[in-house]
């Protein structure tokens, strides 16, 4: 059975990161991040869902590592939020999923 959960993180940098995550059998199916932050390249942000897909929701360290690597390699600039906010939004969504 698939679970859909939503997480929201208000960043200390001033903007909001939201995530809609779909979970099946304890693994992330997709995690769509949205919000009023700023960043480039715009298209790259949709890849974050793809790189997180398949990870176990209990593998917190692995999830953090994948998010850090994504921002280091794919994102040229991010403002109003930090990679930590993306992690926190996802953790909140996953915790809500039990």
């Amino acid at each position: 059975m698939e679970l859909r959960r939503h997480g929201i993180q208000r960043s200390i940098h001033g903007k909001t990161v939201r995530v809609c995550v779909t979970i099946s059998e304890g693994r992330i199916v997709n995690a769509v991040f949205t919000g009023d932050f700023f960043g480039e390249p715009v298209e790259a942000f949709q890849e974050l869902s793809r790189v997180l897909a398949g990870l176990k929701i209990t593998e917190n360290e692995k999830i953090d590592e994948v998010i850090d690597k994504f921002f280091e390699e794919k994102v040229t600039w991010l403002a109003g939020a930090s990679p930590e906010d993306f992690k926190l939004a996802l953790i909140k969504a996953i915790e809500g999923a039990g």
Partner: protein
Amino acid sequence: MLEVEWREDPYYNMAVEEALALAVGEGIAPNTLRFWRNDNTIVIGCFQCLSLEIRLQECLKHGVKVVRRFTGGGAVYHDAQNLNYAISFKRPSPISRDDVLEGYRVVGRAVVRGLRRLGVEANFVPVNDIQIGERKVSGMAGALTTKFLFIHGCILVGSNIEILSKVLNVPREKLEAKGVGTVRARVTTIRDEVGRDISMDEVKDALLRGFEEEFHVEFEPGELTKWELDVAEKLYRKKYASIEWNLGPCRGCPEKDRDIHIFKELSSTSTR
């Protein structure tokens, strides 16, 4: 300086906005300041989720169109009493380090200078707002590519704040962070602040002078080039008038089909 607008076609207005930045980046046009308006439209940030940020059923009820822009930031409501400003710089730009956040600060200063000419004391408030006291009157968004730095913003001259409050679904977390309970309490208009029926031309002229003072230039009136019109047409067809672009990142949302249906209905009334 350009004053070109298609108020009844926000999709084309947005296509022109991106075409201008591209033309400046390519060196086809000089650094360009544009003033323009949409009528009765929500402009949503490029990373935002339609269903979460906008009350689409209310948009349908009030005939409010929705278009996604190519810059980040939050959803804003535009009507004919809201003035948009946009400035495109070829890199390297006059903004220190070509930094977008610094761009908000400098462009914010230009707008504050303009508002002062109208007798309104406003302040730039990071990340990207211009406020009068505790209330927001203008917000900005920007883009940085290898070729251009672009900043645009909208300023509430006399907009219908009641509709704005109905169609935007601002998260409770955001309002709490701003110390207010409702959108209505968070925003103001130039007309409310000056206490008279100020004209759009007066505001535009004051802002133009503010930009000229800040950037130490005199903007010459100009027209769109053929290159810009051609690129705008392509962007309009392939991007801004398309459902794919306007739906944005949420292609797997359970509400997607309902959103597509409403979007089609809202966009069907666009005329250039």
